[in-house]
Structure formats: structure tokens, C-alpha cells
């Protein structure tokens, strides 16, 4: 090979103005999240944040890796149960409780992932659904979950022994921090060298194998991380509402996360959070009226799938990219 340095132009970087626009949008969002509890009911905001994190965790798997899990409620609800039990019965602090919840969800994710990733496409989805139904019955029968009653009156506790989380606004900032950490983890993964390989697997699995990648290892890693993050969302939710119940591990909960991610935009960083905001808001405001919530959500979902295939965020991206 010759050493002549013929200059080959590399790929162009994204425009500085587009970067600046992103930074401004990010700053506005950060400020909005910080002042939000002064305007809106903190518990409502915390619910949005928990579901936004849950949907984002699912999106890491579905949107970036191309694997549809129909059983993510197992990790969300599992995290909630583990945390609720540890905080209430074992009297550990909120942070320790959450860490145990995340670890438990990761172990469940690893166990279910090992079995599910051997299947492809719809068989993968069916396997996750079947295993999560199995997990549902385990949680129903387990001695520590109190069956239909769930674990109630979970104390929020004090953070580092000084910050009292019973106050809603204080709790809100704790949840916001957890959410930020979770989102940072997702962002870090999808914009990393590892994330590039994961996207390649989503794009064309056979080709990724023929480049020498052990695709099952990548899939299992992402599955486990996604489960852990779903667990993080569930654990936090258990502290916010001070309860962990069978609803959290039900298949409807898995479906809700898929719906949020799809509605907001798969494979986008902010999409699932937008979807979660829309759906939680509708559930909250429609619950007080006589309108059938599920029907409205169903209609909104069908319209969004028909009109914008890449979700709400996909539409914005298209407009912002247009010259």
C-alpha cells in the first residue's frame, strides 16, 4: 500500500446551527422541568416522569435494537415490588431500596432475556409475553407481595438520612434526578460505539453476523439494561405512589409502555417521553369525565400511526430538517 496522502474528504459534521438549536431546546426543557412543580401538581408530574423513563427503557430495546418485548411490566412491576418490600419490611433507605429494585429487575431481565433472544421476530415477542405471564403468577403467589392487596403504605423515607421525601416537591426533584440519570444512561448507550453496533443489528442482523458480531451477546446486554431501567422507573413509581400492586406487572402495563413509545416516536431519544406525557395527561384529565379513556387513547393511537409513522417526535424532526 502506498503512503501517498491523497486527501479524501470525510463525512461532514452536523451544522453548528442545528447543534445550537438543540442546546437551546435542551435548556428550555431543563428550565421547564425545574419550575413545573410550581405550576402543576407534583404527583402528576412524577407520574409522567416515571412512565417516560419506563417507555424510554422499552424504546432502548424496541426502537434502537429492534426487539419487541411484550413483557416489560415484569421489570417495571418487579422493581416496584422489590423496592416496596425492602423499604417497608426491611426498613432500608429509599436509595438502597431503589438500587435493590434495579438489581432485581436486571436479574429478571437477564433470565428472561437468555430464553427470549433465542427466538426471532414475533416469536421473541410471544416468548417475552409468556414469561411475563409466568412472572405475574409468581408475583401473585409470592408470600411477600400480598396478592391482590399489593404492598401498601410504603414509606418514602429520608434521603441520606436528612432530606425528607414525604414532601411532594422534594420528592419531585428526587424523581427528576432519577429520570435524568436514566435518560443520560440511555443517551450514552445509543450514542456510543456499542450503540452503533446495536443499530447495525437492528438494521440487518444477518449482515451484522457476517461482520463477525456475536449478535446474541449484544441483544442480551441491551435487554438486561433495558430491564434494569424499567425497574428503575418502577421502583421510583413505588415510592411516589407508596404502593406496588399486580397492575404494575400486568400485560396491560407492558402494552401501555409500547403505546407510549410508538406514539411519541420509536428510536428517538425524546419520543417515548412525549408519548408518556400525552397518554398520562389524557388518562388524568379524562378520568374525571365520563369519556371512556381507553377508547380515546385507542383512537389517538390509530390516528398517529396512520398520519405519522415515526411518531410525534418524528414529525417535528422532519419539519426541523426541512431547509
Amino acid at each position: 500500500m502506498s503512503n501517498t496522502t491523497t486527501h479524501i474528504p470525510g463525512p461532514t459534521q452536523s451544522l453548528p446551527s442545528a447543534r445550537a438549536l438543540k442546546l437551546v431546546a435542551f435548556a428550555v426543557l431543563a428550565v421547564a422541568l425545574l419550575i413545573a412543580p410550581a405550576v402543576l401538581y407534583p404527583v402528576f408530574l412524577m407520574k409522567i416522569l416515571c412512565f417516560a423513563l419506563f417507555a424510554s427503557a422499552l424504546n432502548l430495546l424496541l426502537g434502537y435494537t429492534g426487539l419487541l418485548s411484550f413483557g416489560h411490566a415484569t421489570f417495571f412491576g418487579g422493581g416496584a415490588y422489590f423496592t416496596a418490600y425492602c423499604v417497608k419490611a426491611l426498613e432500608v433507605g429509599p436509595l438502597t431500596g431503589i438500587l435493590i429494585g434495579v438489581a432485581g429487575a436486571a436479574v429478571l431481565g437477564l433470565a428472561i432475556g437468555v430464553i427470549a433472544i433465542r427466538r426471532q421476530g414475533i416469536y421473541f415477542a410471544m416468548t417475552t409475553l409468556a414469561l411475563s405471564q409466568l412472572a405475574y403468577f409468581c408475583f401473585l403467589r409470592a408470600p411477600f407481595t400480598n396478592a391482590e392487596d399489593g404492598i401498601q403504605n410504603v414509606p418514602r423515607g429520608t434521603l441520606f438520612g436528612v432530606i425528607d421525601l414525604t414532601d411532594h416537591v422534594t420528592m419531585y426533584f428526587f424523581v427528576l434526578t432519577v429520570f435524568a440519570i436514566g435518560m443520560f444512561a440511555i443517551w450514552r448507550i445509543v450514542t456510543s460505539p456499542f450503540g452503533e453496533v446495536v443499530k447495525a443489528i437492528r438494521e440487518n442482523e444477518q449482515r451484522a453476523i457476517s461482520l463477525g458480531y456475536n449478535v446474541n451477546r449484544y441483544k442480551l446486554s441491551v435487554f438486561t439494561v433495558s430491564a434494569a431501567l424499567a425497574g428503575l422507573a418502577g421502583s421510583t413509581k413505588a415510592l411516589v405512589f407508596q404502593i406496588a400492586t399486580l397492575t404494575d406487572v400486568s400485560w396491560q402495563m407492558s402494552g401501555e409502555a409500547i403505546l407510549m413509545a410508538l406514539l411519541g416516536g420509536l428510536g428517538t431519544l425524546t419520543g417515548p417521553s412525549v408519548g408518556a406525557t400525552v397518554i398520562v395527561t389524557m388518562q388524568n384529565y379524562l378520568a374525571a369525565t365520563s369519556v371512556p379513556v381507553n377508547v380515546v387513547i385507542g383512537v389517538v393511537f390509530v390516528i398517529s400511526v396512520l398520519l405519522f409513522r415515526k411518531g410525534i417526535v418524528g414529525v417535528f424532526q422532519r419539519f426541523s430538517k426541512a431547509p
Partner: protein
Amino acid sequence: MIQEPVKEGYAVSDAPILSIRGLCKSFGGFHAVKDVDVDFQRGQIHALIGPNGAGKSTFFSLLSKFHEPTSGTISLAGQDITRTRPEKVVRMGMVRSFQISAVFPEMTVFENVRVALQRRTGRDIQFWCGLGLLDGLRDEAMYLLDRVGIADLADKRAADLSYGRKRTLEIATTLALDPKVILLDEPMAGMAVEDIGMVSALIKEISHDRTTLMVEHNLNVVEDLCDTATVLARGEIVAKGTFSEIRNDSEVRRAYIGTDYD
């Protein structure tokens, strides 16, 4: 005299790089590949020809371990790979392309090649770093794209390329792995006539220090490029030898009845 440097993992010898014995593959009761015995010498370009449905693509899938053989053995550079996982075979230096062009459609042309370079350079598991870690791969990726003549398309989405360009991108991606053995499944099918000469020259160039197996229907290309030709029909080898040896073989003529080559 200066010796050619020994490539890692390969003993220098005249032994065939690929040695296949009694290879069979059946789908249900259907025998797609039947009792194939063949050796391929290193450093040459070998053609695999035969009518549609002869089992050529299946044969490639068996070699690259995308399919498990029903029976028989495959050895690559003296190592038995009959039970080796497909990504391991790639790491041993044998890389396949697909009959249906295989690119990562939503990634750019540049990213397609870069992701192929990532594993070889050990930058494939860092989930805690930014993409800046991959900056060092830029020059090599651009060099490879330039080599196949699509450096100017580096920023395009792979999905937006023409069919011929996708195939050249696939070759660039394959080259990124620096394979010892390349399996090309109909690399020129569906290409515009003016691209065929270009790709043909490219294959000749990249095969210089490697072994190439290619499925090709265009017998002029085969005659021009390939050192040997193996003819497959109904899953069986019906002839093998140099192109001039097999061109008048009656079995070959029978296998190719209905095609326009004379």
C-alpha cells in the same frame, strides 16, 4: 529473496484453504446440496456456476455457517469449522456477501463501513464513550470507500443508493474486515453494464492476496476473472476445472440449456 510475510493464523503451505467433504444439506426431504467434495486453492478466484436453484447460495450459507450442514465436513485453513458459529468463522477470516444486497439502510454509507471496522479495532463494546472514540477509523473508512469509488457518497443514507452502489458498498464493508477468504454471491447481478467492468476490475484487485469464491452467471466475467470453475446442478457438482476445461463439458451444456451463453 524476500519472503511474503506469513499471515497470522495461517501456515504457509500448498494445502487448500477450503476443503469440503461429503457436504449435504436437506430442507425437509429436499436435498439442496448433495454430497459435495471439493477443495479450493488459496490465492485464486474460484467461480461457482449453475442454474437457478442449483444450491449455490445454500452452499455459501453452509460454508459461512449460516446453515448447519446435514452431514459432511468443512475445513478452513486446516481447521474444522463444521460446528463453528458463523461469527467465529468471520473472525477466522472467511466473510460472505449476500445474494440480496445487504447494507444497513438507515445508516450512512460512511457508518456502514465504520461499523465493520469497529470490531477489528476493538471499538465495539464501549457503551460508556462517545463516538469520538471512532474518529481514528475515519481515514481507513474513507480510504475503503474511495477504493470502491463511492467516497463522494459517504454522507448518504445507504437506503438511498442505487442497487449497483449498494453492492459496491457491500464490497467496501467486506474489505473492511480484511478477510482471507471472500464469498461473493452474484456480486454483479442486476448491475448496469457500465458498472460490471468496474466491479469486475475491483474484484480482481481485491483478490490479489486473498482467496475469492464467487457465484456468477455471466460466463464472460467468469472466463475473464476466475482461475477455476465449479459447476453445480441439483445440489451436486457436475464438473470442475479451469474454465476452458469445463466450457465444453456436456454436463455443463445440459445444465445451462436455456441460457444465452454459447
